[in-house]
């Protein structure tokens, strides 16, 4: 059914992100060996798995930071692997948050949030600023607007990065191990922020090692190992009834 989807015929009841038989190699190293799954609007999915299993690569492919070699990824019916694709248009729809925050160090927290809407979306500055201040408040960073990234803790920087991404009003948010560089104390504040987002109905794809979080929040969990999805399911059954020995081993190490 998703086969014949085009951008024009896409409607919100169809998959927001549709990943089909995706292959990706770096030189001789094949990182993704045929990944297939759909993400519906408002869904939160978590991709878990040992490092080197290709999970980061997979979600980086969704906003074309990596190109795929074979297969198809569609975002709202738009083929990401299309060479004629307007990548800028795609990235306006897909927000991404990185492990290393990657805030712009020469701009204040508020300016970080405001830059893209002003320069990319060409929105009115006053309007953007009001929206940006609301977002900073939403990620619980009121009062930090004029601080530079270097003056903020890791958790605070990551929340600014989330607000910066949200300022573009994306339809899908990608989170690439966003808590992996944080100390346990600050992990929580970032996870709360993501939970707020998920509860507001944002479509989220997370690569994470936070199993408790995945269990609480995800609609669906995908376990990847060596470039394939080994096992998947809703959190309840996934954690209790994992069948594959690789999943069992991974879970026993991490839980």
């Amino acid at each position, binding site marked *: 059914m998703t086969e014949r989807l085009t951008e024009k015929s896409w409607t919100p009841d169809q998959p927001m992100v549709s990943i089909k038989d995706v292959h990706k190699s*770096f030189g001789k190293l094949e*990182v993704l060996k045929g990944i297939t799954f759909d993400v519906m609007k408002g869904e939160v999915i978590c991709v878990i798995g040992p*490092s*080197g*299993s*290709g*999970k*980061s*690569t997979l979600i*980086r492919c969704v*906003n074309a*930071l*990596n*190109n795929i070699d074979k297969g198809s990824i569609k975002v709202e019916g738009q083929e990401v692997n299309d060479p004629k694709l307007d*990548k*800028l*248009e795609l*990235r*306006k729809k*897909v*927000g*991404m948050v*990185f492990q*290393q925050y*990657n*805030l*712009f*160090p*020469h701009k204040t927290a508020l300016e970080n949030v405001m*830059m*893209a809407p002003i*320069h*990319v979306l060409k929105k009115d500055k006053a309007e953007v600023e009001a929206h940006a201040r609301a977002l900073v408040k939403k990620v619980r960073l009121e009062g930090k607007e004029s601080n530079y990234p*270097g003056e903020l803790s890791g958790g605070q920087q990551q929340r600014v*990065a989330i607000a*910066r*991404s949200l300022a*573009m009003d994306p339809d899908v948010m990608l989170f690439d191990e966003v808590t992996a560089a944080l100390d346990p104390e600050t992990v929580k504040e970032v996870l709360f922020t993501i939970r707020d987002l998920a509860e507001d109905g944002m479509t989220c794809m997370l690569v994470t090692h936070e199993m408790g979080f995945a269990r609480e929040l995800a609609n669906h969990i995908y376990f990847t190992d060596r470039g394939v999805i080994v096992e998947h399911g809703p959190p309840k059954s996934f954690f209790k009834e994992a069948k594959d020995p690789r999943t069992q081993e991974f879970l026993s190490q991490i839980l």
Partner: protein
Amino acid sequence: MNARAAIPGIAAPANTDLPVLAPAAARLSKNTTRERQEGAWRLELKAWYGFVLFALLLLAIGVAEAQSGGDSDRSLIATLVRWMPVILWINGNGFVLNLLISFFAMAIGTVGGAALGLGQISIYKPVRVICWSVTQFFRNSPWLVLLFAIMLLFPFEVRILGEIYSIPAWMKATIGFSLPVMANLSEVVRGAVQSIDTGQWESSEALAFSRMQQLWMIILPQCFKRMIPPWMNWYAILTMATPLCSIMGVEEAVNLAQQAMAAEDSRPELLAPFYTFLMLVFFIYCYPIARWTIYLERRYTVKN
């Protein structure tokens, strides 16, 4: 998993997955970054060099004075003082001309170097290759050879709309100096851009900034601070190289000092005081620049 996309023209920094190697990798990448930015040996002038030069000047004068036997008009101090204005500024020649050449060569070199440096990280391969080749050609040619080439290739005069304008030698020298400076500054620009974490490119790309916006709004503003110290370092190197054009008869400080010595019957005892004086003049001008460069370097590396 370090699955970082290659950003056209931007090499990925040293990455490692092994925690044990992280400190070594960080050190290596820091050193590489510094070397890339400076593109040459670091100019390290110390204050005591100045005192040594001054002591040398006094010693040379003292020894030669004792040898020459007391004729006050031919005394070395009097001779040197008599010629000082000529060597330093009279008629806009002398050391003033060295400075003039250094300013203009630096200005031309900076504009050209910025263009070449940005060309070196262009997404278009032909642009990249051409800019890289030009940079390498001028960076690896001896300054003196470039100077001769420009002096001999450029005409004495040009005819524009029937009027004949002569091109003074110092202008040709300026162009000759600006070429290697341009090439080295091109490397400074490239190095500074490449020293910015690739995460900056990725996150701005993910925010739908265009390549030009990424470069001008995100990357270059972060580079400026990093480029200032090596830029100043190159200015000091250039200034100290300006006497090269004395060979072509440009009447800058060294050329005039030589003429002055010839006018004073080429007395050999003049050599040491005159050249020491020249060294002292250049030192007094370049030393503060070197100090300031080191200060800025420290400031910017700590704060980043």
